[in-house]
């Protein structure tokens, strides 16, 4: 329901992807047309030239035919490797388009404290009951990659930094949204403080729940990108990323990593938790 906000006591469905479904782990059932006996391999030897020639037509495999499209309904061709290759290529192209559309100084709409939803809406790749609280006393923020001063930060040190408050809309890839009030150190200021290479391409967030997300440097340097420590004027609670999480006004919800344990500045792209599974990497809004 568009207006229903799940309370922590009423979590959304279990083991959610941002899309709200479980990934399939099963091996497809063998076709009933599969021969009972394996094919005689000597046939291959005799027809090696022919087989090689067929392989050269591999380019055709990338083609999506009208026939294939009409079969989509009920019989999903999406998972076929060539189809995934095409769709992921387009998704990567869409990353570039979104980077080009990104307006570095354009501020997202902000809202009044009266519009803030409390508590915020929970969503993760596991149930709210399965959240493993991070011990703030022993927790340290590690810094890695293209950063001059890589000394780790304690929660106390982070919480003592000047704060910025943003009241912004959270948009989930599933389609719901809510207004949230977040405060914490501005990421650009933090990067300047630790001497991060602001010309690097990516910022990676490694999280306590083995989640990894990354954002482009332009988004990291956006004025409404903060390392959030507080929600609605109170320390952010366990389900929502205590002691430290990312909040940026220009990305879908799943890009806003919770329970951050390390920040890495790098020029090397590696797939992240959701992009590996086929969700768009840039995920800008």
């Amino acid at each position, binding site marked *: 329901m568009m207006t229903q906000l799940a309370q922590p006591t009423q979590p959304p469905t279990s083991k959610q992807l941002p*899309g709200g479904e479980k990934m399939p782990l099963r091996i497809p059932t063998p076709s009933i047309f599969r021969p009972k006996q394996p094919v005689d391999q000597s046939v291959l030897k005799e027809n090696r030239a022919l087989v090689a020639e067929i392989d050269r037509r591999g380019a055709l495999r990338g083609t999506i035919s009208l026939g294939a499209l009409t079969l989509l309904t009920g019989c999903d061709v999406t998972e076929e490797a060539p189809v995934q290759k095409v769709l992921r290529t387009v998704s990567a192209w869409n990353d570039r388009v979104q980077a080009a559309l990104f307006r570095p100084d354009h501020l997202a709409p902000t809202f009044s404290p009266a519009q803030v939803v409390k508590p915020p809406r929970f969503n993760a790749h596991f149930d709210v009951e399965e959240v493993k609280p991070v011990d703030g006393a022993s927790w340290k923020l590690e810094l890695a990659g293209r950063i001059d001063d890589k000394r780790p930060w304690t929660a106390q040190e982070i919480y003592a930094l000047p704060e910025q408050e943003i009241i912004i809309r959270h948009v989930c890839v599933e389609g719901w949204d809510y207004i949230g009030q977040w405060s914490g150190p501005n990421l650009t200021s933090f990067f300047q403080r630790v001497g991060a290479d602001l010309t690097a391409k990516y910022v990676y967030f490694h999280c306590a729940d083995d989640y990894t997300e990354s954002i482009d440097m332009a988004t990291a340097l956006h004025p409404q990108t903060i390392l959030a420590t507080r929600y609605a004027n109170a320390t952010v609670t366990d389900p929502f990323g205590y002691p430290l999480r990312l909040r940026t006004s220009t990305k879908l919800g799943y890009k806003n990593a919770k329970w951050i344990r390390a920040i890495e500045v790098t020029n090397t792209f590696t797939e992240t938790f959701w992009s590996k599974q086929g969700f768009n990497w840039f995920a800008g809004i």
Partner: protein
Amino acid sequence: MPSTPVKSNDRHAPRRARHLHPLPVRIMHWINAIAIFIMIGSGWKIYNDDVIFGWLHFPDALVIGKWAQYGLQWHFFGMWIFVLNGLAYLTYGFASGRFRRKLFPISLREILATVGDALRFRLAHDDLTHYNAVQKILYLGIILIGILIVISGLALWKPVQFSELASMFGNFQTIRLVHFLCMSAIVGFLLVHVALALLVPQSLVAMLTGGPIVHDDAVGATDTAANVQATPWR
């Protein structure tokens, strides 16, 4: 509409002959059919993740993409086909004069007469080259809906980068609702469109072969039966 006299400074030659559905129109029509198929099927998948109406879930058998991310992948792939093809169609429609010839003028009296005929099952289908008033309204309307679904889609995709556009709709869920209602209108149109194409098969054939040859008596002239020279498919 009476034909206007040929003006000497018209950039089109008088009595220009062409198919009822010129080749570019046919190509764009079928590309659009594929794009709409992808966009609706994948859109239903995306909708199911967070339904707007509690009573409405689209059955798995009707959606494109088994998992949410696949639905999203198809949608953001199909959007390029739909938008680029749509822009080509609009450009062609204006530049060739097809919109002006086929869709205008629309008179209220003609609409009422057509609706009356339709209700008495007296609608004439023997002249494919002439759109009746209801057809004109529907085709014009669906073009406008097509534009609105793209605009609302842009606002949904980029509510921050295009915040000026998004704010014209109201809040985020309003944009979703507009996008959804546009889809509903397109589905409604398609039900009628496909049903009529099957009831009047020569209209379907015409969208494949091009249909009869028509002549413009003049720029601005509406295609009418009087301008039809040949009906090779009969």
